[in-house]
């Protein structure tokens, strides 16, 4: 027995970053907007209460803010003919849930994109020749340029109060900023966070080794700040409990600390938590959405009619919802036909661990989510790939996240894992070990994709999303190169010891047991041609023009940078197109 609700102008499916951005933008345009969020209502006073939030076991280890996998997860397999099995415990990536989504418990690493990454295929073909890109690698150009997105990167940074230092202001290079970045129209809204001792040492070592360190852009405010919506944020106090936690200082940008205080008070906006959307309903032509069907917190099935449906959930959920709704043709890796689910990508993570001399006092518990030192010399196409023979690069950074003892008490390889020798090693290492993070790009491949699992179902009886993923040789070679290069920094730091940790080595299988990155991308990719993409340059479905799909599901492949800056910029870019073009003349914004 389905209950039918009063029609809304717009329904948003999922209420994290992109839901908040679209909600704010479209209510500003006068539309009546409803956000459906499957998780709970969340806010700073309830979910970031001090000191209860300073609880590593509850948040980082048992995952208080993550998706409840007992109800819904994904399945994973390595190859297209393998059996997929459920991702039963959180490991490799941490799916979000609830109002604010993963935007409530991210670090705030707020990068843009290196301009060449948006025209990746063209850039490599022009610089290295058409045959440089290996068989089976399906990298693409984004159908949008850095210059087109620049105002939207800026807008999102100013909403977040992001701290950092421009390296390229309108073409003028500035010391202390990133010399490789695309030109900015404005500097960051707040100055860089102060660096701790570890970041100072990495910065100095990087300069000595010939790299170009810069202040890592952090959506952790460095000063009191009022954003363009009139919402106030406070300065980061280096508490060391950022990612996996909500911020009790109102310093880390999240929907709750930047947009919701304004949006939730609007008469033309409503959020319904505990509303699990089952599908987007289509009319008899299959080319128009009529609304969405969801199950509410009381278990009632509800049809919510709407003129415009915007998919604003996490990347994997966006793709799953399109597949469950029959929007777009599912991708088939064997025939190459279809588009939904294609070009899933991930990140290749590694690190250089540095053991400093005895007596060094890093005070590792003094941490931020994103402030520190970052390096792009080996990122994007900022170095000559010709003799190296691989595609891609890595974002390199040292950010001291904190010294949380369950997860942040490393020991030198070869140390016993228990007993007095372990205790003594933990005590010795805690104050003098630091980690330089290597976050490698991952290309798209014909044999990596998302579809619906034939066996496993969620608590509503719907098929789980199936992830077919494994590493490719290209990424193993990339990470080997980056590990070698960044070891030069450790050498320059006069380390007692240093060693490279790299999950992506030749022949290594994708291992879901260890946290790597929550930066999953693709599956509903943007493109210029409906034959090989799911959405157009304004993130509008080619097949059902009153459906838009936000998020990193639009990325044709993944980059070394963290994706949130690009996700936010694309959401503001799409919102402008909806406001200025779509509303005047609803229909396709790009002719196929």
């Amino acid at each position, binding site marked *: 027995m389905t209950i039918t609700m009063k029609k809304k102008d717009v329904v948003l499916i999922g209420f994290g970053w992109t839901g908040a951005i679209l909600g704010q933008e479209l209510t500003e345009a006068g539309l009546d907007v409803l956000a459906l969020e499957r998780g709970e209502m969340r806010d700073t006073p309830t979910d970031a209460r001090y000191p209860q939030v300073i609880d590593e076991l509850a948040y980082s280890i048992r995952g208080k803010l993550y998706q409840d996998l007992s109800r819904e997860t994904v399945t994973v397999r390595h190859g297209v003919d393998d059996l997929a099995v459920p991702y039963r415990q959180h490991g490799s990536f941490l799916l979000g849930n609830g109002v604010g989504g993963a935007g409530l418990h991210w670090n705030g690493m707020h990068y843009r994109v290196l301009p060449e990454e948006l025209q990746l295929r063209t850039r490599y073909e022009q610089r290295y020749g058409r045959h440089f890109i290996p068989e089976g690698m399906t990298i693409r150009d984004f159908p949008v340029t850095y210059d087109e997105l620049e105002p939207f990167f800026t807008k999102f940074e100013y909403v977040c109060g992001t701290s950092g230092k421009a390296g390229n202001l309108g073409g003028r290079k500035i010391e202390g900023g990133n010399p490789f970045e695309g030109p900015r129209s404005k500097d960051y809204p707040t100055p860089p966070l102060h660096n701790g001792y570890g970041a100072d040492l990495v910065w100095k070592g990087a300069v000595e080794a010939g790299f170009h360190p810069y202040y890592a852009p952090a959506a952790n405010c460095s000063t009191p700040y009022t954003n363009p919506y009139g919402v106030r944020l406070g300065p980061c106090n280096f508490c060391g409990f950022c990612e996996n936690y909500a911020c009790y200082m109102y310093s880390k940008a999240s929907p709750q600390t930047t947009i919701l205080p304004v949006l939730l008070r609007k008469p033309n906006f409503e959020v319904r938590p505990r509303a699990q959307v089952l599908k987007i309903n289509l009319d008899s032509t299959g080319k128009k959405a009529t609304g969405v069907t969801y199950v509410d917190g009381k278990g009632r099935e509800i049809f919510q009619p709407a003129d415009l449906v915007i998919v604003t959930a996490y990347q994997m959920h966006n793709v799953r919802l399109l597949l469950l709704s029959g929007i777009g043709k599912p991708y088939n890796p064997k025939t190459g036909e279809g588009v939904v689910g294609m070009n899933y990508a991930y990140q290749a993570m590694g690190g250089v661990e540095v053991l400093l001399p005895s007596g060094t006092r890093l005070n590792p518990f003094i941490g931020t989510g994103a402030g520190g030192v970052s390096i792009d010399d080996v990122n994007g196409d900022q170095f000559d790939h010709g003799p190296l023979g691989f595609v891609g690069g890595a974002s390199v950074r040292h950010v001291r996240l904190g010294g949380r003892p*369950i997860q942040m008490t490393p020991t030198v390889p070869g140390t016993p894992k228990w007993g007095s020798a372990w205790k003594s090693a933990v005590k010795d290492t805690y104050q003098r070990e630091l980690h330089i993070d290597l976050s490698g790009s991952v290309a798209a491949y014909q044999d990596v994709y998302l579809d619906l699992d034939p066996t496993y179902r969620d608590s509503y009886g719907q098929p789980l999303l199936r992830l077919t993923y494994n590493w490719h040789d290209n990424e193993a070679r990339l990470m080997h190169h980056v590990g070698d290069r960044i070891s030069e920094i450790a050498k320059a730091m006069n380390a007692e010891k240093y060693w490279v940790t790299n999950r992506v080595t030749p022949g290594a299988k994708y291992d879901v047991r260890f946290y790597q990155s929550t930066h999953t991308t693709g599956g509903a990719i943007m493109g210029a041609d409906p034959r090989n993409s799911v959405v157009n340059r304004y993130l509008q479905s080619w097949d059902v023009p009153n459906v838009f799909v936000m998020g990193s599901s639009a990325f044709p492949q993944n980059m070394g940078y963290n994706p949130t800056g690009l996700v936010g910029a694309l959401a503001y870019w799409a919102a402008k197109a909806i406001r200025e073009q779509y509303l005047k003349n609803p229909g396709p914004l790009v002719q196929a």
Partner: protein
Amino acid sequence: MTQPDRRGFLRTLVSAGPAAALAVGAAPAVGHAVETPEASGGAYAPRYFTAAEWRFLRAAADILIPADENGPGGAAVGIPEFIDGQMEMPYGHGKLWFMGGPFHPEVAPELGYQLDLVPRDIYRRGIGNFDAWCVKTHGRPFADLAVAEQTAAMHDLEAGRIVFADVPSATFFGFLLTNTKEGFFADPIHGGNKGMASWKMIGFPGVRADYMDWIDRPNTPYPYGPVSISGERA
């Protein structure tokens, strides 16, 4: 974040998994309400573990984290209490995991945990199997072995030299070590880390979580001791 129940003196064993059938002679109390020695002194009475399992956990905690010049041992800092508390949480019941079938434990290990066992099962079967191995090999359960024998047995377990009948021994060891370290390092509100012993050992200030005045003091000792969620100082 439930506090261990310090009032209960008697605990009824509700769920004896398949390993109960394996209960060795030296584990006399399986299947019956048990009063532990600690309980009769007014201290902690385990809610999930049997008396025999409890003796194992206390002994194992002291082998994995021994009392030494760097601080007290695992039993003294409450690691058994922590693990017992976790067994009563959604975690112990496997409620944080996707547990829908079918189960395919034969797939590549890189695809993650694929057993149909939750932590309560893993401990019940694992402790039963490990104690049975100790009895068979050394004539006594783990808790009654000499420290050198316990240490050697733990090394055998870690190295995969012991095969269990009811749960993969590596799985049991993995949970035991992981949960032991969680209990050692987590906030005392969860039952372990008594006196914030591990935080004092490494110099972690606990919930102070405000270092605005310290970010600009490189390579300087931080002078304040830890504070816990409940406001305890050390």
